[in-house]
């Protein structure tokens, strides 16, 4: 997958996240397409480019989000860095592993987001937090499976066996 492809996929994901994805909300919770893009970018480019694209995804999320702080801009590149370190020890060839990685970071994201919001005085009740955490993580994970399938099907060049 080319970097420019991913760059535009992130823009499209941000636009969809703010518009059409709202029609697929489940108990007022929607999947985080930009977090999926961050994981995708970090696995596709385990280098500075992965972090840069994650930064781009985080900045777009913050611009379109309702919270005042720019927390995604700060934490998405950190997730990217963590994924790059993890991917040096674990191979994420199987889609199921990539999906599990998305679940892990979606969970981490909700916890960190709540901590940041509480530290800024935006109190979120425990019930609401649990609803968003459980449903949000599961929903993001389910959608990420589609993302990775599409990536494998359309965006990854087919590997051909070398001539012997």
């Amino acid at each position, binding site marked *: 997958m080319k970097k420019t492809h991913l760059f535009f996929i992130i823009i499209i994901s*941000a*636009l969809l996240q703010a518009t059409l994805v709202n029609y697929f909300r489940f108990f007022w919770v929607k999947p985080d397409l930009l977090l999926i893009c961050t994981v995708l970018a970090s696995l596709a480019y385990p280098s500075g480019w992965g972090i840069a694209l994650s930064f781009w995804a985080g900045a777009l999320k913050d611009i*379109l989000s309702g*919270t005042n702080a720019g927390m995604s801009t*700060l934490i998405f590149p950190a997730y990217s860095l963590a994924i790059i370190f993890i991917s040096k020890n674990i191979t994420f060839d199987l889609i199921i592993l990539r999906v599990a990685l998305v679940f892990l970071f979606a969970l981490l994201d909700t916890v960190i987001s709540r901590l940041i919001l509480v530290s800024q005085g935006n*109190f*979120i009740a425990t019930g*609401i937090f649990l609803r968003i955490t459980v449903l949000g993580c599961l929903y993001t994970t389910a959608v990420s499976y589609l993302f990775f399938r599409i990536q494998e099907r359309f965006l990854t060049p087919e590997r051909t066996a070398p001539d012997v």
Partner: protein
Amino acid sequence: MYKPSKKTLIYFAVAALFLLFFSTAIPTVRPQGLNLLKIPLVLINFVRREFYGIVFYHSNMVQKERFKRDSDYLRQRLNTLNEIAMENQRLKSLLSLKQRQAYRLTAARVIARQADNWSSMVIIDKGSFNGINKGMAAITYRGLIGKVMDTSGYTSRVMLINDANFAISAINQRSRQEGLVSGTLGGSIVMRYLPQEADIMPQDAILTSGLSGDYPKGLLIGTVTAVAEEFSGLSRIAIIKPAVDLSGIEEVLLVAS
């Protein structure tokens, strides 16, 4: 064990500082970003509206017929109410009561919603160049939906009444009981700080009290669906169903007094 070199550590520190700086600058960058994203967002909305119009042609036709019937009935009601309003105005002037100010309404279209799950807001296609200011109340003809959080030149962000940070002084239309309405990030909102003996019951209409500076008095917020005791047991809460379906807002009116 992995030992980062001095150079790597410097790179890392510079990158971290840059990110920290940029994340704090997001509120400053956001208006320009929203102005840039306005055109693609409007385009996506346009395509979606047209698509819905075609797909739901039949239901739209049935709805149109129903609305036409409603409109005829409401027009007749409006005439009667106009008469009453004029009579009311005459009587008020006779009593020398202070007249309620007339409001200037600005219509705007919703072009996007929040990208995260931690807030509830919409982005509208009118900004400071169209006379929209921070703090203006946002309504539809059915009732209150929120307030303007901030504006850029051509767009504004409107915090909806179900946002966890939203709070407004409200009053029960029937019993005049006051309380504080706040959001739950869900389909309903909560009226808090009601005393134990508060006269409030399901189906009561909740209106803005006019005590919160930016909101005119008497705007419908919603109707009570349930009344319960608060967790501490010191006061009661009322669960309110907003008058406006917050998940389907397409146009808003911004109130400037």
